[in-house]
């Protein structure tokens, strides 16, 4: 069961860019890109907390689990 990252949708709801989020949460743009494109193997709770605080959301709003092989990124279909 792959984990799906829906950071794009959450950013769109807030009208925020990835660069702005990077500045707010003090996480590099490179790492946020890795997360957004589904290449991350793991996410720290501290990262999740920082993102959710800035976006005003819950972890379930940016992470989900779907059936099927391999992970994919929603919003790119």
């Amino acid at each position: 069961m792959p984990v799906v990252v829906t950071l794009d949708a959450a950013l769109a709801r807030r009208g925020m860019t990835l660069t702005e989020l990077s500045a707010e949460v003090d996480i590099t743009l490179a790492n946020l890109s890795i997360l957004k494109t589904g290449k991350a193997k793991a996410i720290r709770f501290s990262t999740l907390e920082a993102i959710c605080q800035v976006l005003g959301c819950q972890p379930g709003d940016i992470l989900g689990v779907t059936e099927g092989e391999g992970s994919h990124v929603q919003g790119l279909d």
Partner: protein
Amino acid sequence: MLRIARGLFGALRLLNILFGAIFSMLLVLSVPFADTLAAHLRAKYGPAMDVETVIAAVRCMLALGILAVVPMQVLLTAVIRMLRTVEAGDPFVAANAHRLQAIGWALLGVQLLDGAFGVVVHRLARTGANMGSGWSPALAGWMAVVLVFVLARVFAQGTAMRDELEMTV
């Protein structure tokens, strides 16, 4: 410092090949010069000396020396390649874990050959030939074998953990 170390190991690798060539040459020459060698041994130790055994033992030692070139070459090459990754700034790669294992096997090979060498020295000593300080088992060498295998496992685990951490956000 690393460059010096790499140069040193490179020089040792060349010396290793050189010694292999010298041992090979001596082994080949021991055939046509066997009578000369036997005469020299009889002159030194007296007519009662079992020169055939001594010559056979010397040939065994040369053959063991030639065989030792292979694991030593594996070991020295692996160390040089590991040093290159350190110079490149990232030694914690899976290839280095495999190289450490290769070093472990090479050291084991050297220890086994050393054991065989000890058997030959023991046999040679019984003929009355002067063996200098003789041979004793290299316990440190055997410990080094175990240590390197353990280190290889630790390195492999550490590299896997590092790889996982690399994609952790």
